[in-house]
């Protein structure tokens, strides 16, 4: 069996595992979450119960979950990767029929007290599945067309299920997250070049034929794309949110207006101020100093994730950690680009800051997997 590959004896056992956790990561994640509690408390106008407290509870549950996962040997997780992937796909299909739609068209199901968005869970299980696939595959075969097609199908199927929810942000992250694992696994750059050329060609074709009799899309579809790409063209509609977000960030200045002093958030000018746009409140109240601190913390988290991947010699662990790291990066990059007006608005939360149960739990589960790989790494 494959777990024999690990020199089991070198891995710590029992409670000694606690000493071998990547504590830097735990501290950094807790620090970012603490900033999140502070901002949520401020946005609620000094009300702990509204957002900060539930968020703390979720963090607590997530932390327990993280330790639990970390204590389980990584090879166990590899062995059930396929199962996890399959279950998540089933959940995705079931929310299509039984799920609840709301809040930017995300679909969720209520499992007891937990409100679960399978699309968030999919980000992790997809990475697990792909890492397990490449662990199984002979590294020499990774760039062969047939063996490239298999992971592409593994990525595209859940992406399709999410895109019809419709949830554009998450489906884009699934695509990019999957591409990142394949990239790390060593799939030839030619494939990436080809896909890029294909996308550029398709986009050019769609837009150059606009206004001609053989245009690909209907006029209203073109207009929808226009507003999506340039919300400023519609300052009272789609552009309103992004303008208010920029005002909040910019008016914070160097050191911000001070804790609980943000006018944009307190007077409700900001949209989704406690979820996707929470970064703007941070910027308004703590200024450039605050936002840069957050960016540095995120950067450190990514650094520790990447270094733990590179210290690890196990292929599954490496790919899993890099895939999770890529997803973590994508959350940050897409969300910040969006609220700072550099990218169209798609619903992607900011990790550990945005109010929301699924994302918090899924992120901590992912960190748990990284810890498991770290504790049980080949030494």
């Amino acid at each position, binding site marked *: 069996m*494959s777990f*024999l*590959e690990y020199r089991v004896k070198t891995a710590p056992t029992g409670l000694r595992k606690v000493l071998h956790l990547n504590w830097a990561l735990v501290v950094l994640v807790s620090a970012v979450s603490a900033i999140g509690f502070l901002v949520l408390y401020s946005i609620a106008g000094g009300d702990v119960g509204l957002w900060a407290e539930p968020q703390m509870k979720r963090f607590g549950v997530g932390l327990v979950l993280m330790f639990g996962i970390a204590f389980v040997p990584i090879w166990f997780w590899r062995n059930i990767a396929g199962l996890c992937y399959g279950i998540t796909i089933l959940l995705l299909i079931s929310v299509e029929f039984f799920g609840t739609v709301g809040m930017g068209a995300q679909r969720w199901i209520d499992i007891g007290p937990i409100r679960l968005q399978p699309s968030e869970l999919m980000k992790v299980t997809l990475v697990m599945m792909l890492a397990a696939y490449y662990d*199984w595959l*002979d*590294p020499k075969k990774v760039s062969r067309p047939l063996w490239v097609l298999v992971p592409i199908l593994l990525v595209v199927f859940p992406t399709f299920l999410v895109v019809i929810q419709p949830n554009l942000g998450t489906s884009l992250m699934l695509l990019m997250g999957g591409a*990142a694992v394949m*990239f*790390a*696994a*060593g799939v030839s750059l030619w494939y990436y070049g080809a896909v890029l050329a294909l996308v550029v060609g398709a986009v050019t074709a769609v837009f150059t034929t606009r206004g001609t009799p053989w245009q690909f899309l209907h006029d209203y579809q073109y207009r929808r794309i226009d507003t999506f790409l340039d919300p400023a063209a519609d300052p009272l509609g789609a552009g309103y949110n992004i303008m*208010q977000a*920029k*005002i*909040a*960030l*910019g*008016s*914070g*200045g*160097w050191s911000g207006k001070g804790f609980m002093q943000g*006018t*944009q958030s307190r*007077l*409700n*000018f900001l949209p989704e101020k406690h979820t996707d746009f929470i970064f703007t409140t941070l*910027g*308004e109240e703590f*200024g*450039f100093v605050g*936002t*840069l601190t957050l*960016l540095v913390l*995120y*950067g450190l988290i*990514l650094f520790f994730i*990447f270094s733990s*991947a*590179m210290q690890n*010699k196990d*292929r599954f662990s*490496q*790919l899993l950690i*890099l895939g999770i*790291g*890529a997803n973590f*990066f994508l959350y*940050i*990059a897409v969300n*910040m*680009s969006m609220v*700072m007006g*550099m990218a169209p608005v798609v619903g992607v939360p900011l990790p550990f800051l945005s109010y929301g149960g699924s994302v918090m739990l899924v992120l901590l589960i992912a960190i748990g997997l990284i810890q498991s790989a770290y504790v049980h790494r080949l030494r």
Partner: protein
Amino acid sequence: MRRNARDSEESARRVNRRALLMGGAFGAMFAVLGGRMRYLSVDQADEFRLLAEENRINMRLIPPERGLIQDRNGKLIAGNEQNYRVTITREDAGDVEAVLNRLSHLIPLTADDLERVKKDIDRNSPFVPVIVADRVAWGDFSKIALNTPTLPGVTPEVGLSRHYPLVEDFSHVVGYVGPVSEKDLAELTDPDPVLKIPKFQIGKVGVERWMEDTLRGSAGNKRIEVNAVGRVMRELERTEGKPGADIQLTIDADIQNFVQVRMADQSAACVVIDVNTGELIACTSAPGFDPNLFVRGISQRDYSTLMENDHRPLANKAVQGAYPPGSTFKIITALAALKAGVITPETTHYCPGYIEFGNRRFHCWKHGGHGTVNLTRSLEQSCDVFYYEVAQKVGIDAIAEMGKRMGLGVRHDLPMSAITDGIMPNKDWKQERWGQDWRIGDTINASIGQGYVLASPLQLAVMTARVATGRAVEPRLIKSIGGKPVEMPPPPSLELDGAALRAVQAGMDAVMNSERGTAKSSRIADETMLMAGKTGTSQVRNISAAERARGVTSNEDLPWNRRDHALFVGFAPLDAPRYAVAVVVEHGGGGSTVAAPIARDALLRALTGGIPPLDAYPAAQRGRIETDLNALKEKLRVTATPQTTRA
């Protein structure tokens, strides 16, 4: 499946290379994000800070309190009345339906009212108060105030609205205010922002309009913090505005009221002027209307009633009405002739009852003629032929020059609406207006104030004041602004020959006080207040030959709107003139019988400062006049004590 160690090492290195590439790309992206943060919060911070302030801070104007208008003694003519209204706020009311239902048991609310309120509530944000009832009676208002605990969201409010306590007495002089219209805004090059306040009112006619800038004052403002949906969070700063300045008119509200009542239901105008200062003491036009109707927004029915009335209540006949002055104009012809040296006070002419000119015959009003008359007799008996003869020698241009010198055919600048210039025709005027040469017949008509000559009661009053004093008296309406008296230099001399003035005054004395005077029945008997005057009866149209054949010979036989206008001008006391008066009664008939008694009573009222005492009248008339005065007293307005301070 077990791989050899070399393969594993190799693939792990490969993954690490790829990981470094990814890490590098991610780091680059983080650098971009950091740069963007810096750009937004440091480089552009000032701009965004401004935008954030603009978002959150609104300016609201505080409408200024409009200046009061008072009479010369401080009696209130136009004030600001507390206006009680009831509003409802949806978010405080909870169940709007139930609250409105309870409210409709307390105050009268029609189904239409309720419908409108519900519509307004649906249209507005939940925190916007919607007016349920405006101008609520005090009783209803206090009922609501008592019941507020059971009426959540209902607020009784007090606002200010313009009020005219003297109702129709000053409807023409002071006018009224109304909501700002698109037209009002279009006429202004730089409209005061306060005009855009909903329900703000500005002067529409009269003093209210022409002194608008003085009365309006300037708006204060407050800076308030609002949230994204416009709810007011708190007030940050407040600058009080400046209330409009109070204006005191020269008019005496009691005299104005007396004259207005005295004219009863005639279509008439009366102007009383202080001959020494030009101050208008009364300036009335009957019938009047209730300006308060316009403040509230006049109903279509009330408006058409006013429009359809053939006595034209909306017209300010005192300054706007242009009438042929009739025989009152003989004063001008006489002065022009004396100045030109065509006649002396002793020159006589023979009146056979008409003169022939070419193939036309111009009649004197008296069929048999007046025989030989001099200037005094000609005024006393209003002989037309004397003036026909004299005017031909003087010429129209000299008469027109004298008319303008005495204040006819020129616009007197007062803060009132639609002030007419009148017409003081001369040869050039006719050429310009009608493209025709002036004929001698035109001069003959003009000499007795018929034909082209038109004058307003105001102009006739000014003329009379100038005759009484020999000074270029200018009428004025504003006594003080904001407590500061409006200074006017004493009127300059008219540079008229004293003998000529005295001759005309003597004629006017004879009109009232001699045995054959046309207005002797309206004389004042009190030696200290003797009155001088001149009657006038101006034809609206000639009685046609056909009517004559049907037996129509006098006014009473004609329909009202074709009867003659009755005019009278006069001043008193004779030896030391104080007040001049001009009265026009439209289609009233004879000046001596209809207009002169009104003028006499107006002068007596102004001179005595109260209801005219009976002994001022000739003994024979006292019985009849006592009854009339008693009847009149019943109708006088009882005004409150003078109000000099703001409510």
